[in-house]
């Protein structure tokens, strides 16, 4: 019975609960059982059994009273950079190894208010800095997917790698992730799941541990386009506690799933055909364009001339903001403290011991590009380039383009340890197709569209106008219907 329940999409589980075929308590127990036998994946850094059972019990009681929220009784996992009241929250870092927030993030608070159940906290790259979930203080998460006939361990992508792995491995009905440069969409592509980064300002950032505040956005990872639409509706919305959150009403995204895309103009950016793109990815992209054409959309080539500068500009803007945001980890208010002769030595030793190597590197680069004499050459220039990147998209939209179709990643999932060599830039190139959106504040959805020759999932990305998430759900549904869904073939870890 338990596999029968965890196999259901969120949409199907919602229906089963509504029809009384099973209770929230039964559904939650099935997921807790699956989590307990998934240690080999290292997707969860904390399973909250007692809290999950209590929340499920309360949900069943509410339902019995006729009080049914949009996510009533749905068990979810949450990336460990969302503050969860009285539940340890580490952002994958040793420096927050014992941090227990006395408050709840706005987005997770909305999920619980809509009836969802917290199963636990999900692994991630330390402070969301990475594309493989290998930089977590808890060790890497393993992708539930393996190459056909191989037992080599692959990364699930990152930084929301625990979220993506848990959704794909059916260890939660859906998950909350965050995306600063591709951290929802790239892991979604690596695990055959659907992930959407909404428009900057669509979800509140309050209570989410900050990496780069002008780029960070919350969003869901899910097993179908419809599941993602249901989750985003609950997560989105204005929050007075986040001055960058948009005071715009949240539409019923689920109603957009299945809507016609006839007559929509889809742009194919020529600059995304980067050197060395694998023929598999290029073919997938062509097939995706054909799927949209078959559904009545018009596909045209467009130019986004500043695309190649998005990644270097991103690494200046994001790391500058990170160096500022992470100044708060000083061993005074929370986290581990290492004693020193004086307060400066205490700071230096605390931060050297508490941060992992990638975080230390990123803070130092950010400090450097903001330091006297380099600020104009690096930071101000990068912010100007950011204006140009955004203008590229504005020009395309002004010419009548409704959405842009691009690959989600340059390759399928790679092996653990494969890209953690001496050159950090090799890992940064993972984000080549995803960072442009964060730089421009635009929404993007990653939807699985096929398998590689080695049997690994590949994703396509649709990029929309500001607050055009509904259109993205309609287009992504076309791809999901044409390409099918991609469940993990075998639960080898259980």
């Amino acid at each position, binding site marked *: 019975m338990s596999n029968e329940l965890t196999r259901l999409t969120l949409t199907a589980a919602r229906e089963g609960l509504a029809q009384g075929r099973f209770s929230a308590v039964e559904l939650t127990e099935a997921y807790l059982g699956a989590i307990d036998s998934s240690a080999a994946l290292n997707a969860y850094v904390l399973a909250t059994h007692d809290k999950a059972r209590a929340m499920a019990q309360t949900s069943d009681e509410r339902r019995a009273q006729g009080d049914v929220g949009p996510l009533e009784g749905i068990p979810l996992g949450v990336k460990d950079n969302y503050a969860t009241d009285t539940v340890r929250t580490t952002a994958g870092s040793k420096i927050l190894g014992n941090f227990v927030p006395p408050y709840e993030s706005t987005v997770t608070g909305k999920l619980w208010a809509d009836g969802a159940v917290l199963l636990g906290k999900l692994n991630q790259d330390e402070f969301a800095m990475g594309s493989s979930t290998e930089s977590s203080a808890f060790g890497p998460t393993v992708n539930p997917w393996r190459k056909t006939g191989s037992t080599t361990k692959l990364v699930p992508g990152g930084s929301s790698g625990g979220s993506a792995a848990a959704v794909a491995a059916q260890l939660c009905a859906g998950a909350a992730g965050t995306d600063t440069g591709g951290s929802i969409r790239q892991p979604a592509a690596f695990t055959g799941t659907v992930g959407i980064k909404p428009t900057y300002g669509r979800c509140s950032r309050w209570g989410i541990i900050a990496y780069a505040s002008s780029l960070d956005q919350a969003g869901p990872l899910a097993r179908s386009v419809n599941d993602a639409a249901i989750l985003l509706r609950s997560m989105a919305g204005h929050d007075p506690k986040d001055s960058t959150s948009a005071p715009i009403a949240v539409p019923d995204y689920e109603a957009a799933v299945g809507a016609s895309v006839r007559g929509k103009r889809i742009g194919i950016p020529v600059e995304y055909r980067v050197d060395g793109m694998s023929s598999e990815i290029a073919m997938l992209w062509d097939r995706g364009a054909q799927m949209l054409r078959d559904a009545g959309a018009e596909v045209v080539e467009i130019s986004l001339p500043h695309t190649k500068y998005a990644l*270097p*500009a991103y690494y200046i803007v994001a790391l500058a903001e990170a160096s500022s945001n992470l100044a708060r980890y000083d061993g005074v*208010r929370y986290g581990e403290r290492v*004693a020193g002769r004086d307060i400066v030595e205490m700071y*230096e030793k605390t*931060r050297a011991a508490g941060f992992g190597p990638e975080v230390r590197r990123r803070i130092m680069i950010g400090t450097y590009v903001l330091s006297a004499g380099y600020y104009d050459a690096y930071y*101000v220039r990068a912010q100007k380039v950011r204006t140009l990147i955004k203008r590229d998209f504005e020009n395309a939209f002004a010419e009548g383009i409704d959405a842009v179709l691009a690959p989600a990643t340059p390759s399928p999932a790679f092996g653990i340890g494969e890209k953690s060599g*001496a050159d950090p830039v090799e890992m940064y190139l993972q984000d080549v197709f995803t960072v442009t959106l964060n730089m421009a504040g635009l929404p993007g959805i990653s939807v699985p569209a096929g398998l590689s020759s080695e049997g690994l999932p590949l994703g396509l990305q649709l990029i929309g106008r500001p607050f055009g998430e509904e259109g993205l759900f309609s287009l992504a549904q076309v791809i999901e219907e044409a390409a099918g869904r991609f469940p993990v073939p075998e639960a080898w870890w259980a």
Partner: protein
Amino acid sequence: MSVDQATVRRVAHLARIAVTDDEVAHLQGELNAILAFVDELAQVNVDGVEPMTSVTPMQLPLRADVVNDGDCAAKVLANAPLAEDGFYAVPKVVE
């Protein structure tokens, strides 16, 4: 642009991160790889382009200047490595 080892030490100090001699050599290579990568931006013509300050056009919201949260010192201090008498405790700062 590239950094020498003295710059690595200076930046580490600015960032308040202790580094060992071994780490300085590694960091120099890694930081220079990243800086070489971002140097590509020097090719872009940014004459007359405004630096982005806000990715979405919006007006900063204002609220009434009143206390709307707080009175929870014990909760706030619960995560402190060291607290005394309702305050964070740190090594002596002022002589």
